[in-house]
């Protein structure tokens, strides 16, 4: 097959995959929104309990709140609006959803990326230190440390972060780090025990050269796959952590939307969250499959 044909094939399959992801994400959003629509308490607001409202006002309130059209029609309108880039208006915040997302996505993105940075840095540092000193004391203590962090519920980590005035990304990093550390460590250990690495060491190659020219190329593919998975973990953990730390990101938005049964917001937030998770998972899958032959 010529290079051009291969390229176009790859492009086609990438586009098909993207379309599939979009459909899945929209499907997920609709499932979630349907659950909320039929959940008790939909269309009911706390302000109805205020005795100052007159009877006509309460009737008018209720009329406005209920969906005038059926759920299917609502989804149809949502999809057509989505094609124009209009995401609707939030019921509980009374502002366009696009504006809300635009303000909050960067906050969450920031926290997730920085948290991942800390987690990877920590995992890499600890793992390489472990390689440098292969003593049992270091192994035992680092295993104990990462086990301890792994055993803390992420909600407790969030509360600790609030208490210690640590930023949100620190909590996310602490949650992701132990999950990475074990895998990275075992991966590096296995790579270093490969016969060709042993041969390179016997020949007296510098440790830097061994790492960059022999170990890294083998471990890179599964590490790339791990990057994708760690991203989904970080993003998934960000939602309850942000809700508990009261950080103005996507997590808090999702929590508020769920509590107030805000249908337009829930559809959009679920769509974005699902899309991000799928994309990360697919990239991880692709990376894994592209280099599947060379996993140690």
């Amino acid at each position, binding site marked *: 097959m010529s290079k051009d044909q291969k390229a176009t094939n790859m492009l086609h399959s990438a586009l098909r995959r993207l379309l*599939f992801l979009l459909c*899945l*994400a929209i*499907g*997920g959003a609709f*499932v*979630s929104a349907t*659950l*909320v629509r*039929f*959940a*008790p*308490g939909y269309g009911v607001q706390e302000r109805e309990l205020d005795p100052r409202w007159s009877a006509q006002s309460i009737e008018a309130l209720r009329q406005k709140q209920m969906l005038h059209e059926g759920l299917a029609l609502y989804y149809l309108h949502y999809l057509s609006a989505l094609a124009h880039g209009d995401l609707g208006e939030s019921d509980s915040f009374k502002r366009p959803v696009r504006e809300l997302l635009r303000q909050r996505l960067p906050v969450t993105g920031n926290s997730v990326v920085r948290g991942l940075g800390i987690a990877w840095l920590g995992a890499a540092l600890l793992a390489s230190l472990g390689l440098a000193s292969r003593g049992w004391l270091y192994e035992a203590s680092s*295993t*104990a440390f990462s*086990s*301890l962090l*792994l*055993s*803390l*519920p*992420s*909600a*407790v980590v969030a*509360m600790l972060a*609030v*208490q210690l005035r640590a930023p949100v990304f620190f909590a996310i990093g602490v949650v992701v780090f132990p*999950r*990475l550390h*074990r*895998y990275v460590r*075992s991966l590096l250990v296995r790579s270093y025990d490969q016969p060709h690495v042993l041969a390179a060491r016997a020949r007296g190659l510098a440790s830097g050269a061994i790492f960059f020219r022999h170990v890294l190329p083998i471990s890179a593919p599964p590490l790339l796959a*791990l990057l994708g*998975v*760690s991203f*989904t*973990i970080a993003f*998934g953990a960000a*939602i*309850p952590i942000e*809700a*508990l730390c009261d950080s103005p990101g996507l997590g808090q938005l*999702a*929590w508020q939307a*769920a*509590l107030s049964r805000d249908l337009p917001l*829930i559809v959009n*937030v*679920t769509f974005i*969250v*699902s899309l991000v*998770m*799928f994309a990360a*998972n697919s990239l991880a899958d692709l990376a894994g499959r592209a280099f599947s032959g060379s996993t140690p």
Partner: protein
Amino acid sequence: MCDLSTDGARHHPPTSLSCPAVSRCPQCRSFDRHPLGTDALGRDSLARLLYGTRISLLLAPAAALLSTLIAALLGSAAGFLGGRFERIVLAVTDLSLALPWLFLLLTVRAMLPLDVSPMVSVIIAFLMMGLLGWQASVRVICAAARGVRDSDFLLLARSSGCKPARLLLYHVAPNLRSLFYAQFWISIPLFILTEANLSILGLGVMEPMASWGNLLRGFEDFSALGANPWRLVPLVLLVIVVMCFQLVLPSQEVTQ
């Protein structure tokens, strides 16, 4: 060791408050009557801790069993049949992983009939966790089933005219049994942690039942611990138990 059965508890169950031993004495400090002190309502903390331990330790494995069964079924069928079915199952797995589960939990909580007993609501909470926690194991089981599918003995069985269902039940599943056990044991600490997270957020085990997560609520202000450091005991217990599970179990693929 503490006897976790109901009859063994030295104090009355913390949900029945007509017992005269439960004093209307919040934050009580008398050691012989209340070794770990009392909570804000005068209920004995040690009794609540024992009950909470019982709930967390007995029902997490139940949820793990349920989720492993679902994952085993779906994963082995997907890996074995391959093709479109496998793609669908993996897509559904991804979808349910990506969905924010808290909507579902809020819905289920609100739909429960009013006169359901607290124990039933706990069981429902763990059922929900089991029904939502199978995704992590499915991929692993699917990959393993794919491996078994290409093995020789299966080829022989298929060529002898075995039906797919029989193949699955009698040839594929038994070979994956050790993997199922591994996934089951691995899921238990995950469910303990999930239950703790949910209860802290208010979506898990509800009052007046106690559970580890329940007892950890309202911890944002750690200065309260200075007054009553025993409130940390559920957290310490939880961390110790989960650490034991993790140190004993083999390290596995990074999962959620």
